């Protein structure tokens, strides 16, 4: 039975908005030219390739359903499980189901801790027991392991090369048809970077991604690629599930705050007078409370509301989802002030320009002027703010979950992963894989987001003309 959680609905609304914007932009040359400049940025397109892979995983993880209950002996199956799964869970079923007893190292065949096991002859011995799922297909784990892992890695690389070649062939073929040249010529143009769109950056990034993903996929069939955590869950599964949470926090938050920021900012700037005073007072007040504390206060209150009304939620997943959504809105509540101030200042400038005065002279209503004449001309500020905020929000989620005011503890996210793993480095022997996996995935995601937002800003900010500026808003996240 398909289940649509609130965040799923918003995620798909966002996708629909993105598609609609894409169609709108593609028909207007003056808007398209800025996007072409984004497409020319090599770092931007490399980052976009990485982001696309993350978004794909996140979207797969947003298709939720409740599996039909299996028929228990003597009864016909009716009704659905209370456990909500996603399409990604279905794809990763072996990883999800393959839980071990406790820690095991990446690609290990044995547990990471000794256990007392009864030998066949009746004596007891302290040994590292075999894993229940990792490397179970090996007859003699010590002798066969190297060979098996090497074969799988080679197989993975072969898969990677094949996938990459297929992708490259499709693009080159399409390019050859488009330019009406031979395929070799098309390939040479792409590879030398003679195309306007930075295809070669996409190719190189994809090759690197594939070289990582291919072996990971091939190995995941038989082993725990990143090991298992304290309760034996596969760390690769946890990191892949974390991606959706990070993307939801990064995007839904901006979606939630945009209406406030845009409407209030433009209204304050255009109408002025007491309306302006009230709106300024509103955001100065909100701004004067340190962000973390305001979030803490709001999240604590939300927790009380959710905990005192358990009857609102049919499943645990719905409760966790409601909390995730509420966190997005709370983060949005604290972050709209900056954009609002920018938009107000810009509207103050635009209000005095000739085309707005002309519209006023023609008798256009204020609402119409704000919607048709001011809003389209501040959209670049909105867009830059949206992409710039993303990475900061992903980082903020991890910190907030650590403090205990982030997502629900049952929601898999980078923050909860780090939180449960933070004492593992103090163990003897050290358990490093959970933290390293979370670190690598988070770093790649945030780095790609930062590079992409730089490319967008360079292309859209008319003041910059190619120069880079960092926003001080990001500094607030540090330590």
């Amino acid at each position: 039975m398909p289940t649509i959680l609130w965040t799923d609905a918003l995620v798909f609304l966002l996708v629909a908005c993105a598609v609609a914007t894409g169609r709108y932009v593609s028909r207007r040359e003056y808007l398209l030219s800025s996007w072409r400049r984004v497409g020319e940025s090599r770092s931007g397109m490399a980052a976009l390739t990485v982001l696309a892979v993350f978004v794909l995983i996140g979207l797969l993880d947003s298709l939720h359903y409740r599996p039909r209950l299996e028929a228990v002996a003597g009864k016909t199956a009716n009704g659905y499980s209370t456990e909500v799964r996603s399409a990604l869970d279905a794809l990763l079923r072996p990883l999800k189901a393959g839980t071990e007893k406790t820690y095991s190292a990446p690609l290990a065949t044995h547990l990471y801790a000794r256990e007392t096991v009864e030998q066949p002859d009746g004596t007891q011995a302290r040994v590292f027991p075999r894993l229940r799922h990792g490397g179970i297909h090996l007859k003699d784990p010590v002798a066969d392991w190297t060979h098996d892992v090497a074969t799988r890695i080679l197989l993975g690389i072969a898969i990677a090369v094949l996938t990459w070649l297929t992708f490259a062939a499709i693009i080159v073929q399409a390019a050859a048809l488009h330019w009406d040249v031979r395929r070799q010529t098309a390939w040479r143009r792409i590879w030398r970077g003679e195309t306007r769109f930075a295809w070669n950056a996409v190719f190189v990034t994809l090759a690197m991604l594939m070289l990582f993903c291919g072996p990971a996929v091939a190995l995941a069939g038989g082993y725990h690629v990143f090991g298992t955590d304290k309760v034996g869950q596969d760390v690769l599964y946890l990191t892949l599930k974390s991606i959706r949470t990070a993307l939801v926090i990064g995007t839904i938050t901006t979606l939630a705050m945009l209406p406030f920021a845009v409407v209030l900012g433009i209204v304050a700037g255009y109408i002025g007078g007491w309306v302006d005073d009230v709106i300024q007072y509103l955001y100065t007040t909100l701004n004067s409370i340190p962000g973390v504390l305001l979030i803490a206060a709001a999240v604590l209150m939300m927790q009380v509301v959710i905990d005192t009304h358990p009857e609102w939620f049919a499943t645990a997943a719905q409760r966790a989802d409601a909390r995730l959504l509420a966190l997005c809105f709370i983060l949005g509540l604290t972050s709209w002030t900056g954009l609002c101030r920018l938009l107000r200042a810009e509207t103050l400038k635009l209000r005095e320009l000739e085309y707005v005065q002309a519209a006023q002279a023609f008798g256009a209503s204020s609402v119409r002027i704000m919607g048709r004449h001011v809003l389209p001309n501040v959209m670049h500020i909105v867009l830059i703010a949206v992409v710039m905020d993303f990475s900061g929000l992903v980082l903020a989620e991890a910190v907030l979950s650590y403090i205990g005011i982030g997502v629900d503890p049952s929601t898999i996210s980078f923050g909860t992963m780090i939180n449960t793993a933070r004492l593992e480095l103090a163990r003897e022997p050290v358990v490093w894989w959970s933290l390293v996996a979370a670190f690598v995935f988070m770093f790649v995601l945030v780095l790609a987001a930062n590079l992409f937002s730089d490319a967008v800003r360079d292309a859209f900010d008319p003041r910059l003309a190619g120069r880079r500026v960092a926003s001080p808003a990001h500094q607030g996240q540090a330590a």
Partner: protein
Amino acid sequence: MIAYIIRRLLYAIPILVGVNLLTFTLFFVVNTPDDMARMQLGIKRVTPEAIEKWKAERGYDKPLIYNESAEGMGKITGTIFFEKSVKLFILDFGRADDGRDIGHEIRSRMGPSLAIALPVFLLGLFVTVSFALMLVFFRATYLDFWGVVACVAMMSISSLFYIIGGQYLVSKIWHLVPISGYAGGLDAARFLILPVLISVVAGIGSSTRWYRTIFLEEIGKDYVRTARAKGLSELAVLFRHVLKNAMIPILTGVVVVIPLLFMGSLLVESFFGIPGLGSYTIDAINAQDFAVVRSMVFIGSVLYIIGLLLTDLSYTLVDPRVRLQ
């Protein structure tokens, strides 16, 4: 000048009233004291008597904003709003859930917080500004390019990893300093050096990029060309002219955080077990001690408003063109 300061302080009052109303709504209207009591006592085994007792112990057993049963001024003062929110204005924070006086805790915890935050602030400012000046000095070279790349990479790492990794490397592998803890007096340096270093390193990425942009904006201006035309060395141009003229944007971002240094840092203090205001706040959040969180919100906004005022005053010090009326 004095008139200006007084006027600014008067402007602060409506903002603080707004903050107060907001926290009052969040803490007492969205959730009634009954909900809080139920949370604290555990959802399941809760009797109405236990709730009443919990509320009476903490002074939540009064009406929210208007007390019907009281006499005279008591109608206003005998309420939760007056007791818990209005009294914040005279810095009377009341007691935490464990019965301790919040005001006393705050005073005694400010020291350790400042001991970390002040060195981080000064050292961080020095390091990032000099690093940014260096990048600008070598602008449009490979050093500049890779410096910016390093900055972007550094700002993509969560501060949690800086702390966890730093603790692991320096304390566990190299055994240079204790992993966590705190001591009074000069002994504190041993415990403070690592958190300070980690916080400075964690802030390098974004701050350096920010300052670099400010300097690059300045360096395109005419007075810089004049200075070069006079035959000044590039170093003299950077330090004597560009740095001075970039002071206004730098001060805008820097001065406002100075009062907030008293609040300490949530993450660093809790990881390193430093008994400052940051770890106090985290403990309160984890224990769902709303009285403490409310007080910290109020102090935070007071300090922020002071920071804004200081920012404006600092402009007059660095830029003689700025006159405050």
